[in-house]
């Protein structure tokens, strides 16, 4: 198929960005979206134009590195997938495709379509763990975790830290991401001891880094490639309230 790509170009964090249009032809429907950008980039290099910078690594939907805002949706027009899993069969010949970076204050643009998501690491560094030193653990079966709880914890633990939830949210709230980590750990017996400290520390950091509040619009859940449920946000609120009351 033949397409027109309208891509956000921005030389650096400080530079002013703008859209550029690039025609591209002969794209197979079986090609992935990022392979389509590879094809464009090879062409741009041959034409002496700086290739479009974008983040990606695993290309199988698990590392959370890819992060494109395609036709107004984080990770593009298909549900429950990351950009790297999007295939060109979702588009038709003659389409114009608009490609932008995540847009959120706490995720500044580094170049073109690449943003800095370091803020996510910082939130987790402030409490997203269980304090267990290497070598001190009891036998793994000494902690019984019923299948249901283990599965619920796993549902939340599936978050890949991509940031689509923040990009989708009009308030740039990180609540879905933070609540996924809080739920993953708080649902497990071994994570309960630190649950209160964890919730307070992570929420405080999230606010400090400039992520907005949650107004329950549900855009995050709708765009999350890993189907992280908004019910985690309710659990986070509960954990946080408990922590404050306990104080």
């Amino acid at each position, binding site marked *: 198929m033949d397409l027109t790509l309208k891509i956000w170009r921005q*030389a*650096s964090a400080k530079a002013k960005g703008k859209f550029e249009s690039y025609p591209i032809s002969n794209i197979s429907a*079986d090609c*992935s979206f990022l*392979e389509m950008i*590879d*094809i464009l980039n*090879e062409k741009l*290099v*041959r034409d*002496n*134009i*700086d*290739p479009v910078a974008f983040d*990606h*690594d*695993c*290309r*199988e939907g*698990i*590392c*959370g*590195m890819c992060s494109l805002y395609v036709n107004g949706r984080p990770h593009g027009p*298909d549900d*429950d*997938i990351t950009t790297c*899993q999007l*295939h060109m069969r979702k588009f038709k010949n003659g389409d114009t495709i608009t490609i932008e970076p995540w847009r959120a204050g706490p995720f500044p643009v*580094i*170049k073109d379509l690449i943003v*800095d*998501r*370091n803020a996510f*690491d910082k939130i*987790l*560094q402030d409490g*997203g*763990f*269980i304090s*267990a*030193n*290497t*070598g001190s*653990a*009891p036998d*793994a*079966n000494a*902690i019984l*975790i*019923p*299948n249901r709880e*283990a599965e619920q*914890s*796993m549902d939340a*633990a*599936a978050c890949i*830290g991509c940031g689509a939830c923040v990009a989708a949210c009009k308030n740039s709230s990180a609540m879905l991401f933070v609540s996924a980590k809080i739920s*993953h750990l708080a649902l*497990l017996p*071994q994570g309960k001891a630190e649950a209160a400290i964890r919730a307070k520390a992570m929420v405080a950091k999230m606010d400090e880094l400039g992520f907005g509040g949650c107004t329950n619009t549900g855009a995050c859940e709708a765009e999350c490639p890993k189907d992280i449920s908004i019910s985690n946000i309710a659990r986070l609120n509960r954990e946080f309230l408990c922590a404050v009351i306990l104080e």
Partner: protein
Amino acid sequence: MGTLNSRSPEGHVSQQWTKFKSTCHLVNPANKRKLDIIVVGTGLAGASAAAALGEQGYNVKIFCYQDSPRRAHSIAAQGGINAAKNYQNDGDSVYRLFYDTIKGGDYRARESNVHRLAEVSNLIIDHSVATGVPFARDYGGLLDNRSFGGSQVSRTFYARGQTGQQLLLGAYNSLNRQIKNKTVEMFSRRDVLDIVIIDGKARGIIARNLVTGEIEKHFGHAVCLATGGYGNTYFLSTNAMGSNGSVAWQAYKKGAFFANPCFTQIHPTCIPVHGDYQSKLTLMSESLRNDGRIWVPKKIEDAKRLQKGEIKGSQIPEDDRDYYLERRYPAFGNLVPRDVASRAAKERCDAGFGVNNTGLAVFLDFSDAINRLGKATIEARYGNLFQMYEKIVDENPYETPMMIYPAVHYTMGGLWVDYHLMTTVPGLFALGEANFSDHGANRLGASALMQGLADGYFILPYTIGDFLSKEIGTKRMSTESPEFIEAEKKVSDRIQKLYAIKGNEPADYFHKKLGQVMWEYVGMGRTEESLKKAIELIPKIREEFWSNLKITGNPTEYNPELEKAGRVADFLELGELMARDALNRRESCGGHFREEMQTEDGEAKRDDENFAYVAAWEHKENAVPELHKEPLEYKEVKLVQRNYK
């Protein structure tokens, strides 16, 4: 040609690690604070090492090229992690895991290391659970297991199809805790480009800040490389786009020996190649072989019609299907080790029985399992893998059999390390997939995650102490010393040299060319002729690269083309060493299949008399590399021809 000393402790294999731990030198807490350790890589091996070393009180600096340590390619491991817990009461033990790993590796791994790996395997599961890894559980709350290729017990722990992700997040959480405690400092978006050696010891690294282009110098009393495998030498593989062999390669050029570079694992269950724009291959976890049955048509006419798209697999009657693994290997059936399964698929496709339009695919069929267990059970076990398949191929695997074909997946070879995980350069350690140590000529499924975490959490923290105990008098060194300046200059010069080429083709063009040569001539079946051909062709591509490469932009900004060019330059050298090693090893073993060396029924034929050694290559400037041998002595396990029939 010299021989290498593995520094394995004396005594019976089952006593060596205990003995080592109780007699190795220690560093007291006050001195640990004065010692700096550099860790390159934040995958299972690097993240767990940095966390454990930070907990012990060392100062750690850790590096990765991604934007966050959580994105290391360990994240993509699907199937599971082995341990000798024997929770299923099916006869497993440390000894059996040790034995299976040695046998699975076709008797080309070091006994002492492998036994230690099996010993610490149980601690990994305990620690991972303690740090919050949500492994699959049964209804009573106990841990569940599945089976994997190459073993007859159920010893694989898993977290849905995302075991690597969950284990990595566990290690990443522990790493974050140490970052908060200020024992570990994190440097993301850094491309590590060289190792600095001072007075014969590894003392630091040179890294390029990928965002600003700045060249940085970092000092450490010791340097640990956990940079993963070099499967991307083949261009197409199941590795991540950024996975590379560059750091290990620079270490090699600085004197670290490279061991068994030709031992590459071709994984049997990957989604077949579909076009020349393809950028990577996707693995379908081997755990699928627990319930899926592999087949091709019995009749060549059926295969032809499948290739032309005239019929679908589901239309071929049961009697006309050839379940070739069950036929050839009745004892292990679909669960034979990876190398055996991959070659069997190639054999059928080469004979014309492939089932897709390129003739390079076989079926992996779940219809029996769905009939037996119900769709819900299959969905619970493999739901996310099925979804992934459907997204890529646009076919529903609950209804039509999956199509799979082998692809490059893992590299057993890597930097040579001794029992201490130290390379031939003092103070330079290698762990995880980056070293060669535990899997011999073939790695069993679910054993890489085990090895990465064993090295990082439980082995390196002891063995590095033994080295550092002798360094407590070594003061922190300035990064303005002549050695650092020289290494920095070398890195900058190479970048300038790459820019100065000003040719016409982007880096990927050369990478694809190399990949074709590697797959064709150093792939699943290798011959003396094919390997010689590769050794002739690769230098030509290298020459073309150095005269016709084109990089846009400039080095002082974010520049992925520059990053790629550096990696491809290294792959172009590493690929040649792989071919040389394969040519030297005139035997078939594990993933290394020399077509000249096979048994009457087409199985790999080892030559223990002449090749029971680790081939460790030493770099020689402007000359062919020199081979050193570490003889493999089997005191515990008897060498026999592997038999999965």
